[in-house]
């Protein structure tokens, strides 16, 4: 995923001299190729994320296409007001890339973990939100963001999970990662946990879906899910304001006799308690690969 990201960034810089990358002293190896091939289109602004968003807005006002890179704990979280006022309000085409989302930086603790980035951006006008699950989805999301006339946020979570796709999907619309004839239960996921859902879907023969674009929320998705009795929403993000919320909000406004019942498998409303590996940190939220399988089986048994 990171290799593709680096390639996409370099290709964008080569094909468009107006494309500039700003980083707040993060992402060293990610930008090696860019710095080697287009040094004038990479700007390490120093450890100063707030002003960095202002620079990006100023560059966009003079015709550049800035990509602002940071860890999701800082971009968008630390700079939310700058994104709102400097970029979204004047509808400037800035791409924000939030790396290490969720619990990727498990050993670094709560300062570097981020389960609320999607939630804090969703109420803002003029910004699309993407949460790709693998390099192929990332390619599609990146290209869409690159051609947008307004801002985009791309959430990069755990990037070394197995790829879900064999090629980039043609759109950022939701799609089945495992299809099944069952209409009882469907697992809907986005980002880092899509591959976990897909593996379980194949193992247990239940349909699973990926939602690469959270905002604008794909309205057709809610409609297409009405045929299921139960929905499990799986995300490495707080249940407040993420995929679960987006779907629940959309479905709550639909005319439907029988709505599916929802189960949320998401980050708990708590900070890291102890230090440990990525799987250990996920386990604190009952979201390790093993936890997810166990909880999914419990749901299946409870509704049987």
């Amino acid at each position: 995923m990171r290799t593709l990201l680096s390639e996409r960034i370099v290709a964008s810089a080569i094909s468009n001299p107006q494309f500039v990358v700003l980083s707040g002293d993060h992402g060293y190896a990610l930008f090696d190729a860019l710095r080697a091939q287009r040094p004038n289109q990479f700007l390490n602004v120093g450890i100063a994320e707030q002003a960095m968003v202002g620079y990006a807005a100023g560059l966009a006002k003079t015709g550049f296409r800035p990509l602002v890179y940071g860890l999701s704990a800082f971009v968008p979280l630390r700079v939310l007001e700058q994104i709102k006022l400097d970029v979204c309000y004047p509808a400037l085409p800035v791409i924000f890339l939030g790396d290490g989302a969720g619990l990727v930086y498990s050993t670094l603790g709560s300062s570097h973990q981020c389960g609320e980035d999607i939630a804090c951006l969703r109420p803002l006008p003029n910004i699309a939100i993407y949460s790709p699950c693998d390099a192929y989805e990332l390619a599609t999301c990146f290209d869409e963001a690159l051609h947008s006339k307004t801002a985009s946020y791309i959430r990069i979570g755990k990037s070394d999970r197995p790829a879900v796709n064999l090629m980039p999907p043609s759109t950022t619309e939701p799609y089945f990662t495992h299809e099944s004839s069952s209409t009882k239960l469907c697992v809907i996921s986005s980002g880092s946990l899509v591959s976990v859902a897909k593996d379980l879907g194949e193992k247990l023969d239940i349909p699973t879906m990926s939602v690469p674009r959270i905002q604008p929320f794909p309205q057709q998705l809610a409609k297409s899910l009405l045929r299921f009795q139960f929905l499990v929403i799986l995300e490495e993000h707080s249940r407040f304001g993420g995929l679960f919320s987006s779907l629940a909000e959309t479905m709550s406004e639909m005319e439907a006799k029988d709505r599916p019942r929802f189960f949320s498998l998401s980050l708990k409303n708590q900070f890291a308690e102890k230090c440990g590996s990525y799987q250990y940190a996920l386990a604190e939220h009952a979201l390790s690969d093993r936890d997810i399988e166990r909880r999914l089986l419990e749901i299946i048994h409870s509704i049987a």
Partner: protein
Amino acid sequence: MNFDPKLLRRHVLNMAYNGGSVHIGCAFSLIEIMSLLYAEILTFDPQNPKSENRDYLVLSKGHGVMAQYACFREIGWLTDEHLRSYLSDGSLLHGLSESHTVGCEVSSGSLGHGLPIAVGIALGLKMRGNQKRVFCIVGDGELNEGPNWEALAFASHHQLSNLWVIVDANAFQAMGRSQDVLNMEPMVDKFRAFGLASEECSGHDMGALRKTITHLEQEKPKALVARTVKGKGITFMENDNQWHYTRLDKNLLDACLKELA
């Protein structure tokens, strides 16, 4: 176009009275700065406020926006009707500057935003080889905000010689004297320590302003500390911080207009 400070102050007073607006003192301290910039310094196209060939004026201290609206009225970007309907339901102009308003480069009022954007514009112009300049007006109280200092360090590091920071140093902020709330002095020394060319002068002496703006060292980003008086121009408003918040009634308006006649 008439940028006579007395006329601009009269525009502000009429707007403030019509709209029941506060922030009169904040606008009055930067009238001469605005007047000089629009009359003599800035390149702009009265027919096209978004002209690519313009110098940028970023008002980061959005609380003084009425002074800028007064200039826009003289340029023709705003009409008397805009000024008459100020702050009324459905009107165009907000009480703080908004990037949607013709002539306003940024949305401010939330402080510490304008200077980083101005720095981004200055960088973008330099990268394009565009010779146009960027002027950014900040308040001395606004300098409490951290992103300003991030942006100043950046401007110095990248030698953004096309950037002029002008501090409307009226010595007050919302809740009191700046030196009592959070003392940012000595500002000129701070700017110099950050690598900018910096001088101070009276912000109401057009000759001193003109000289300082044009004589600061060309190779560096520049910071001019304009020593101003909050509420300048109306005797009973000067250095009285209640004119950050107080609204005009008809009697006060008449008294003010008489003083500016």
